[in-house]
């Protein structure tokens, strides 16, 4: 299935891209996105427990199942205000 992956702040710097359409295995869950990013850049490991995943602009838990067409965002610790 296909998702759109959006990266922000530190996550974008580590991955080297802002937005990408990505083919992922059916049955993938939110946490799998982090594994994919970590495979590409091991430095993601330090952020694994600090980032949140949002699907279609809503924060989801680790085991949230992804669906075809989902808009998935990797949200590093926010620092607005």
């Amino acid at each position: 299935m296909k998702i759109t992956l959006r990266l922000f702040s530190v996550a974008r710097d580590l991955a080297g891209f802002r937005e990408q359409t990505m083919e992922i295995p059916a049955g993938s869950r939110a946490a799998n996105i982090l594994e994919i990013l970590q495979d590409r850049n091991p430095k993601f490991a330090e952020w694994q427990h600090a980032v949140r995943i949002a699907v279609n602009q809503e924060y989801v838990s680790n085991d949230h199942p992804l669906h075809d067409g989902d808009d998935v965002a990797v949200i590093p610790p926010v620092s607005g205000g």
Partner: protein
Amino acid sequence: MVEITHSTIDVQSIVGTVTNSESGAIDVFIGTTRNNSDGRGVLSLMYEAYEPMALKIMAELEDEARSRWNLHRVVVVHRLGVVEAAEASVVVAVSSAHRKEAFDACRFLIDRLKRDVPIWKKERFVDGSEKWSVSKATNQESTGALK
């Protein structure tokens, strides 16, 4: 009312928006760029956001504040882009009949904005270097963090 802007925030106009004859109390919080961070000189901050989600969460926070307290008007404005020292990056303004609600709601809104709204700042130091302002501790304490 929640808003994201790329220009200077007009505090006077926000105070005008929340002022009304039913209210006895207005609390306004203004977050400004400090010229230092952990002892290092800061020139400016650069804010970026996941804009549609930021607006969505800001609106949810306004709804939650309104459900918790009896508020008359609520304005939350965040600025993006470069914000120089002493300039405002965020303004939260709340009006209510009595002061307790205004204070509590204003504090709730800025606390939760800083925890949950997908906005990030990069510090630009006087020595020319830049760094995303990130505290690895913050998100882990938050609801919704991946565990």
